Structure formats: C-alpha cells, structure tokens
C-alpha cells in the first residue's frame, strides 16, 4: 500500500512538473512565432506556414494548463451555494467529481476516436493532424485520473462526515488568478 501511495505521489509530481513546463514552453513558442510574424510582415517574408505551429502550441498549452488546473481543483467555479451549506457541499462534491469524470472520459473516448479517424495533414508543413487532435484524449486521461481520485476523496470525506472540506472554505471563494 505504501509503495502504491508513493508511486502515485511520484506520478502526481511528474504531471505537475510536466504541465508547468509544457505551458511555459508553449507560451514561449507562441511569443516567438507571433513576434516573428509581425517582423516577417514588415519584411514581406511569407510566414503562413508557422501558423500551424501556433495552432499546435495553443492546443497543447490550453489542454496541459487545464490538466494543471484540474489537478489543483482551480478550474473556475461558483461556490456560493456549496460554501453556504457545507453539508450539501460535501454531497455535491461527489456529484461534481462524477460529472467531471464523465466529461474527461468523453474527451478520452470520443476524442480518441476522432483522433484515430483523422487522416488529415496540415497544408503547409504536412504535419499529421493527429498531433493536434491527440492532445484532447491524451490530456483527458490525466483529467479522468484526477477526477477518479477526487471522487474517492469526496466519498471518503462524506463517509467520515468530518469537518474537513468545504466547511472550512470562505463563503464565496473566487477562483485563483482570473482574468477580467
């Protein structure tokens, strides 16, 4: 049991590091390519081909970042009701985790089928579109794992009916680092 727990925490740390690195790398790639695009326009060098890399970086940045937020439980949500009624919140947490698991599994199954069925290549650089669409099922697997863990955790919390969890949250906790 101890070994399994240890392996899980090593895998979790690896996912945290990988997603962080992936997001930073994708953002840097986007920054460089979009700056180059502006410069290329002034020098009239054709640059359309690199838009395909921009799209690739955007997809992976968004989905790897989503895995990171999913892992931290930091996806934007409204906690006004669950915060005001902690007992209901503990029950709702199970439903929410189950819904998130269903969503993640849909990304894995439907997204996986969509990716495998795709036989397109990008027009300029001839990149296999499976590298693009594949981000959906691949990241979906991680999301599903974290939701499964969340579901188990929420179930245990409810079973214990302890004081931990949403009872300790402030009345309405906004998500970290929102953008407006």
């Amino acid at each position, binding site marked *: 049991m101890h070994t399994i727990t240890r392996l899980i925490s090593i895998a979790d740390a690896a996912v945290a590091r990988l997603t962080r690195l992936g997001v930073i790398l994708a953002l840097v790639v986007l920054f460089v390519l*979009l700056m180059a695009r502006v410069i290329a326009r002034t020098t009239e060098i054709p640059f359309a081909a690199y838009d395909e890399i*921009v799209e690739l970086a955007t997809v992976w940045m968004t989905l790897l970042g989503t895995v990171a937020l999913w892992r931290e439980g930091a996806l934007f949500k409204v906690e006004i009701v669950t915060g005001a009624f902690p007992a209901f919140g503990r029950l709702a947490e199970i439903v929410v985790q189950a819904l998130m698991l269903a969503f993640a599994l849909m990304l894995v199954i*439907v997204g996986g089928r969509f990716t495998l069925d795709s036989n397109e290549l990008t027009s300029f650089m001839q990149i296999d579109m499976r590298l693009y*669409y594949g981000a959906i099922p691949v990241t979906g697997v991680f999301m599903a794992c974290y939701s499964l863990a969340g579901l188990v955790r929420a179930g245990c919390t409810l079973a214990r009916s302890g004081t931990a969890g949403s009872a300790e949250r402030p009345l309405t906790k906004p998500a970290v*680092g929102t953008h*407006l």
Partner: protein
Amino acid sequence: MSVFVIMSSLVSLILIGTPIAIALGLMAAGTMWWAAGPDLLGIFIQRFYTGMTSFSLLAIPFFILAGNLMNTGGMTNRIFSTAEVFVGRVRGGLSHVNVVGSILFAGMSGSAVADCAGLGVVEVRAMRNAGYRPGYAAAITAASSTIGPVVPPSIPFVIYGSLANVSVGALFLAGILPGILMGVSMMVVIALTARSKGLPRLEHRPSLAEGTRTILNALPALIMPVFVVGGLLLGWVTPTEAAVIAAAYAAFIGIVVYRELKISDLPEVLWASGRQSVQVLFIMAAAAPFSWVLVQQQIPNAIVEAMLGVSENPVVILLMINLVLLLLGMFIEGIAIMVICMPMLLPVVTQIGVDPVHFGVIVVLNLMIGLITPPVGLCLYTVSQVAEVDLFEIIKEIWIYLIALLTVLLLITFFPGLVMWVPALFGF
C-alpha cells in the same frame, strides 16, 4: 429541448459547484446526445477544438502576460507616482491618484484583477500611510480597477469580439470615452465627499523639477498604449499581435530600462500568465459546442420572440438586458456570463437595431460592475486579500462608487453616441 430545461440545468450544474467549462461542455454533449444520439458527439470534439484555436483569443495570454510583467517589472510604482504629480495635491488627492493611476494602467493592461493585484497594493499602502481608512482605500481601489477592461486594451473586449464576430479594434476605440467617463464620475464622487469624509491632503507638494523627473521616469511605461492602440489603429498589427508587442515591450522595460525584472523571474511570470489564460481559454473551448447547440435548438430565436413580446422599444430592451446582466454579475463570473448569454442576447439586439459594438461596451461595463458587487465580486476579494482589509469594510464604502458606475452605464445605454463617436472618427 426547451430554453427552460437547458438553462435551468446549466444554472443548477454551476450552482452545485461544477466548474463552468465542464457545465457548458456537459450541457452541450448531453443535448447533442438527446437530440441525435452518440454519433453527434464527434461534432462536440470538432467545435471544442475550434473554440480553443481561435486566433483572436490568443490575445488573452499576452495581455495577461503584459499585465504581470508590468507588475513585476516596476512599471506599476511609476504609474502611481505620475498620477500623484497630476492630481495628488487636492483634498482626498490620493483617491484621485488612485483613479488616474487606474486609467493610465488601463491603457497598458486589459485586466481589472491585474490592476487590483498590482497597482492596488501600491495604492492601498500609500493611502493607509497617508491616514486614509483601509476600507475606503480598498473600496476606491476596487472601484477604479474596473476601468481597466473598458479602456483599451481589454481582455473582455477580445472575448466579446470573438463571440459576436465584431472588430476588436472598433471595440477598443468604443471603450475609450466610457472608460474616461467612469474615471470622471468617480473623481466627482471623491470631490463631493472629500470634506465630509475628512480625507487628507498630501503634505509633500512636489516641485516642478521633481514632477518632471517623475513623469520622465515613467515615460517608457506611459507610452506603451501608443504601441498597442496606435499599432491597431494604423492597421499594422492585429489585436493578438498588439498583445504580443505589449508583452515584449513590458519585458524590455522591466529588464533593460528599470532593471527590476530579472531573467530568473520570467518562468514564474510565464507560468502565472499561462495558468490564468487557460482558465479563460478552456471556458471558451467548452462554450463553442454549447453555442452550436443553442443555435441548433433555435434557442436564440425563442429568446428574441420572448423579449420582443415584452417590448419592441430598444431602450426598454437594453434596460432589461442591463438588469439581467447586473443580477447575474452579482453571482457569476463575467466571462461565464458572456459565453452563456451572448449567443442568446446578440440576436435580440441585432433585431432591435442596436450596434453590436455599442452593445459590447454595455455588456463589458455591466460585467465590470459585477466585479465589485457582493456576494461574488472578484475585485472585492482580490483587494481584500492583497491589501488585507476586511471584506465588509470595503463593501460599506463601495456603494457610492457603484452608483457612479451605474450612472455611466445608463448614460451609455441612452446615448449611443458616447460609445460610437470615437470608432466613427476612425472609420468604423
């Protein structure tokens, strides 16, 4: 499936604490399955992918990055000092400085939260040291931060432009006058209440030489809007490219000119910016199949018929929309409101002949007011956290600024010219 079933299910999912993107995605997938079985779910993935890769939305990470670089790179302090030179001497001067600082910051960043979390810390600290009540200082900081996303550049305008298929450049221009009006209305309130609240004056009056030095020191930061808005107006860059240039410029100024941003700070700034951006981009990805489902179910048509059944007067309809958005803004975060409501409200306003650019500014101002209304006011919480001021102290002081902002909202609703004049000058 009826409007009622879809919307009530969505709201229920959101209220039990389902992340907004997941709620949108599940509603879209569920409706697709209900309408045509599991085969239609392929379209979900297609739309989800398209929603994620919209080029115009790529402006969001870079405007967020620019804001974070400005806060880390020393621009924020200099903006505050410059505002102090201009309006610091009158009674309640630091309150005016707070508002002017936010207008200047707004010209560089498109985020109210970036204003609260960066400039807000400097402002509240300075006001506290000068003898202002912490609740008052935090309230004016939260209220003035709402100017950020109305004055260009603006992240909500980028999102609205993408949802409504409207020129982001036109929206940026349309926000200039209402943004200035927001600032003026708050400064009028400050001037009217300064004596009764016993607000202090600044003891130190900077000399002409000191003032000039301060402004010159801040000049590299102050000319940033020239690159962003100027480049857009001249047609040299798209909004996304303008955002990238803004981020590059902020990094350059922070590292080379002010030397307050270290290379070693960059990974953390990039990670924070990427993380904040993904929160929006994931919602936008899930909103794309949801919008498709709404159109397939002819829900916008039903909303148009229902609203036109109440009145066909554009002003009445706009007032009704304002009321709905203000109420939603009290409980739900702004971008979620935008992605849920715009596919339904845009056909209504188009039908009554309201310009989508005018409507965009109305929507964004409504959402900004939502940022400072309890119980779910993101700027209230941000200021409360970063300035360590009790939330209820802020709420007690903020109501008068809410009235000022509501007045501006009514003005721009009744007088479209206040919004459309600047875009018209530039041929939009």
